[in-house]
């Protein structure tokens, strides 16, 4: 579904991604783990079109999207719930969800999808008229995921969905991610919480200072001594 070849990204003189290649197949949960500054967020931003690569290609469902605009990528079915949630804080919960469906014109279907998001996150329904900035961290994360789902993505990219959340909520968010995946959405998950991410992932890539240092199935990587030492606190 998603195929990245030899992707290079620069920020001025800084070489942030040094020729990474990765693949996400339809129906999978793929996770990208690694330390701070390894380039995980940059990878997702480049996939969603916010950052232009200096070299390399990105293919989505067989189409070259390397130079496509972010709008076109949303239209094709790539959606990103960005790091730090980035919800529109002074707009209401409902307005945030409606913006998630910005490119869609099918009003009746949008309504249906909003009620589906409410079903998945009942707390958002209670707070639909509230300014999104007044929600708690966990609720904001739910809103960010709900908003990203409103474009009916084929590939949902999630950047650190567990950041800053209490352990109980982290579990809940991961359950939700698995459930979204079961209902047919492919997921590319960036996480610092490596053990949780590896548990739910079909496959995983480990990033280190702009390169991919290791890849394999979630289970394989969980057994790897290197990973245990570096990321799982063992």
């Amino acid at each position, binding site marked *: 579904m998603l195929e990245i070849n030899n992707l290079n990204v620069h920020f001025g003189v800084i070489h942030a991604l040094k020729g990474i290649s990765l693949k996400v197949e339809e129906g999978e949960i793929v996770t990208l783990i690694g330390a701070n500054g390894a380039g995980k967020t940059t990878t997702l931003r480049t996939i969603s*079109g916010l950052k232009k690569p200096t070299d390399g290609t990105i293919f989505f469902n067989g189409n070259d999207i390397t130079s496509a605009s*972010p*709008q076109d990528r949303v239209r094709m079915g790539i959606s990103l719930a*960005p790091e730090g949630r980035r919800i529109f804080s*002074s707009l209401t919960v409902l307005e945030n969800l409606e913006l998630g469906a910005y490119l869609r014109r099918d009003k009746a279907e949008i309504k249906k999808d909003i009620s589906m998001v409410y079903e998945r996150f009942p707390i958002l329904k209670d707070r639909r008229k509230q300014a999104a900035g007044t929600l708690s961290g966990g609720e904001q994360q739910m809103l960010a995921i709900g908003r*990203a789902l409103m*474009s009916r993505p084929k590939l949902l990219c999630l950047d650190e969905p567990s950041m800053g959340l209490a352990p109980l909520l982290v579990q809940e968010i991961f359950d939700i991610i698995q459930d979204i995946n079961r209902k047919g959405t492919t997921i590319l998950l960036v996480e610092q919480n490596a053990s949780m991410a590896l548990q739910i992932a079909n496959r995983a890539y480990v990033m280190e200072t702009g390169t991919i240092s290791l890849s394999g199935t979630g289970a394989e990587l969980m057994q790897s001594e290197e990973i245990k030492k570096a990321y799982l606190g063992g």
Partner: protein
Amino acid sequence: MEQFLQQIVNGVSLGSIYALIALGYTMVYGIIKLINFAHGDIYMLGAYIGYFCMTYFHLGVIPSLLIAMAICTLLGVIIERIAYKPLRNATRIAVLITAIGVSLFLEYGTMFFVKANVRSYPPLKGILTHSFKLGSIVVTAQQILIVCITIILMAFLQFIVKRTRIGKAMRAVSLDRDAAELMGINVDNTISFTFALGSALAGAAGILVGIYYNSINPLMGILPGLKAFVAAVFGGIGIIPGAMIGGYFIGTVEVMVAGYGNSMFKDAVVFAILILILIVKPSGLLGKETKEKV
């Protein structure tokens, strides 16, 4: 008391014009964090377009107004595309300096074509020459026209910003440009649209001021532009209702100072207000204190 009410009437008329200009400042600031110093010159161009429509083509006020708004809209979009869009990722100071350059270009470019002399709007006809007496307070038909047109335009603006798809996009882009892009919003088009709206309102203000004060010149946009900027800061820059309130406030204060004090000081007082706001509440009347994002 009568004099006070009379000054209020005059202040509201002048304030309408400031409010229309301030809206453009505040919307553009809200969306790209630029103080568009060329905005006052769009207002000047609106006044000239209105002048030509009325003097040479003998059009009425409303058709002239619509033409001025349409041409200013176009100019606003062209200026944004040529001057500001290439600087999208430049420093804010670079864009600001460009805006000052655009402002000078419009002022002296206009002067080249229409000469520097002051021109007078043609005398109004029919109902617009009337004035109405409420006790000893005089309200002219022009003042009523100015306030009515301003209110209609503001209501229209509110409708666009609150109810339409592009309005939602404007609000989203002004809150978080990257996140808006992730929603599939075309940020460049949204910014162009914001310039278009602001310029249309400035064009309307230009022709209204031509009708009200009767004389126009190529540098007429400088001072009202700066005052409208003060109005926008007073209300809270980036906040649309703030610009409306600020416009009426600055207009009324200016008229009061001229009426009760010394008209020599009316401009000074407006800028003294700016200094006061910046000391007491830099975020403005309706603004929230925000931390600079890192």
